[in-house]
């Protein structure tokens, strides 16, 4: 039995606070509200303001030619157009679902364009812009959403892993892959070394797998950039359902750097991601990048955001549109002629037509697809089920085609 007399403490809560670097004695509400201050602050790294003004930054900067700026602009316009077209295709019944990237073009193009030809990416399911940068044609994304496949591109040759729907699962795959890069001795040089980049959302940060990825990547010094697109919503859950403090701070507790960048600023995102990848390639990984952005459309075409967020929020974010600010910058600084914009617009139209044509002509898979590639080494069980079913299926064709 324990002794009954319990010594008493002289330490006051106020004194205690000082230990944490808080001198005053705020109310609980104040403390937590303070901790919860997740808005943009001086910690948000920017190179191009929402007004299209180029700003510099003491630590990071980017030397960028007009042609390069134009090409970033072009990428963003084209992926946005592909996204809008796919969204329309869903509305017209050509796709079962679409997951819009609208508003996240700068985060994705900035990150994707930062990658070298030796780096590997592990996306979530909204990274159509990253796919674009890695040469995965937008048409190749359609199969998933039309119910034809679970991802058709080659993850090895494109260096773009398949979309991963179970939230945060891919973060551990990326960690393992990056551990493999290190095991293979591919770390060391900022240019020629290899690195991995992993994409996930703000909601994903609450999953156990995210944490385990942080732990493992830190323990094994994995050359891995954790790239969080904080678009402020996980379906209807706002950021306050996942965290009190800005997400980029998470990495501190694991002993690796975290940095927050304006995810609607393609230049800042490019600069930071490039830096982060170089850090990883030289062996200083992992690194966390939080790209602050906004999901301007619904979560998916099945979602109805009017049920949980105000239009005014969207209106505010429209002022920070990632594509528009580059256009304004190009125009205002005279870095691109009207013909350039016309050219990009025409390209976008062509892309949209190509996407639509492709989508409408996609063949539906036959029943044999169910049994295809379940295993690398055939399973008699699956083979028997396939043979039975295909024979059964053929019997209808013999009878004149249709099921009764």
């Amino acid at each position, binding site marked *: 039995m324990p002794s009954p007399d319990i010594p008493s403490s002289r330490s006051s809560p106020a004194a205690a606070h000082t230990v944490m670097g808080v001198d005053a004695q705020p109310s609980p509400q104040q403390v937590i509200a303070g901790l919860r201050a997740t808005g943009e602050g001086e910690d948000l790294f920017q190179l191009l303001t929402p007004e299209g003004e180029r700003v510099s930054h003491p630590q990071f900067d980017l030397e960028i030619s007009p042609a390069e700026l134009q090409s970033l602009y072009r990428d963003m316009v084209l992926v946005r157009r592909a996204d809008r077209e796919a969204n329309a295709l869903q509305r017209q019944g050509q796709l079962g679902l679409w997951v819009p990237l609208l508003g996240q073009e700068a985060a994705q193009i900035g990150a994707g364009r930062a990658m070298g030809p030796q780096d590997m990416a592990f996306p979530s399911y909204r990274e159509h812009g990253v796919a674009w940068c890695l040469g995965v044609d937008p048409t190749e994304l359609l199969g998933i959403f039309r119910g034809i496949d679970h991802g058709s591109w080659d993850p090895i040759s494109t260096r773009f892993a398949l979309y991963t729907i179970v939230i945060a699962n891919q973060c551990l795959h990326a960690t393992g892959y990056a551990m493999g890069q290190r095991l293979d001795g591919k770390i060391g040089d900022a240019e020629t070394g290899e690195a991995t980049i992993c994409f996930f959302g703000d909601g994903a940060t*609450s999953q156990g797998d995210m944490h385990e990825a942080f732990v493992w990547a830190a323990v094994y010094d994995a050359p891995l950039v954790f790239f969080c697109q904080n678009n402020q919503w996980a379906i209807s859950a706002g950021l306050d359902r996942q965290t009190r403090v800005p997400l980029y701070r998470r990495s501190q507790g694991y002993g690796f750097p975290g940095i927050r960048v304006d995810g609607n600023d393609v230049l800042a995102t490019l600069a930071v991601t490039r830096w982060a990848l170089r850090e990883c390639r030289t062996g200083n990984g992992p690194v966390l990048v939080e790209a602050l952005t906004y999901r301007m459309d619904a979560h998916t075409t099945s979602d109805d955001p009017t049920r949980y967020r105000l239009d005014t929020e969207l209106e505010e974010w429209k002022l920070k549109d990632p594509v528009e600010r580059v256009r304004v910058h190009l125009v205002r600084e005279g870095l691109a002629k009207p013909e350039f914009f016309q050219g990009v617009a025409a390209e976008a139209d062509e892309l949209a037509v190509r996407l639509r044509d492709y989508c409408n002509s996609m063949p539906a898979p036959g029943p044999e697809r169910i049994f295809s590639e379940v295993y690398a080494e055939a399973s008699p069980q*699956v083979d028997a089920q396939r043979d039975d079913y295909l024979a059964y299926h053929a019997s209808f064709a013999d009878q004149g085609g249709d099921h009764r």
Partner: protein
Amino acid sequence: MTADTSPTQKITMAKGLNQGLRAAMEADPKVIVMGEDVGKLGGVFRITDGLQKDFGEQRVFDTPLSESGIIGTAVGLAVRGYRPVCEIQFDGFVFPGFDQIVSQLAKLHYRSQGKLLMPVVVRIPNGGGIGAVEHHSESPESYFAHTPGLKVVACANPVDAYWMIQQAIACDDPVIFFEPKRRYWEKAELDPTVSPPPLFTSRVLRTGTTATIATYGPMVRTVLDAAAAAEQDGCQLEVIDLRTLSPLDLAPVFDSVRRTGRLICVSEAPSEASLTAEVAARVSQECFYSLEAPVLRVTGFDTPYPPSKCEEDYLPDLDRVLDAVDRVLAY
């Protein structure tokens, strides 16, 4: 009784669940609803629509995106005396919470030898047929049926949905509650004054003499349709909705098979080591001398759920059920 005063209303299964949840929350202030997007959004299927508005953010709350967290905190809330009703958004997303379900939720009553109650309901919309992307069409019920300490039920129509969710919440054991998502919008007449059968019982939905079909969840509708079609061919199928998957209530199935001599068991789930195997094994043993044909199983295949354009072929349908009837009668 005039139309005005009739308590009967025509409702969808979604509405049945919603009203059942509401009734349970009204009946017991310890009932709380938690899960991803269950608050303002009312859940991606709107099953919890309006509950947060009416019962407040303390009793109906959106959670962080973490299923282990949902189950694990529900366990702690149950220790504290609450009766949490957890929503798992889709079948394929229950697995991050599987450890807490199997290692804790299922075992705490046993571990504590009854000193702790675990009156937690885990609602899982399950099954395919809605043209969804990967992980949104799974039928994981056998995993839970294979886990001692859990009870597992599956509703198949709006009336059962309304009652079973209330009964599950009232149950002092953890209940994994499957909702056939592709049946959410099917309608039926609910008369809330008629009292329901006990939760852990199966039900004969249609009597017949030619053969018996046992099924549950989303396949009940399919099998009933098949039975209606078979009747035109002069074949009288007895249809049993299992309703409770763990413990199974097989007495009505045994009774039926002793009369019909033939059983088909239907489920969307892959067949290996599944509930249909259990039903087939038990019936083959219990009704050994009555069976005139082997128990046949009509199930999903032992493959991952295919891209949705293939799901018509993957999912058992009226034709596959009738084909099995032909085969079982051929013995």
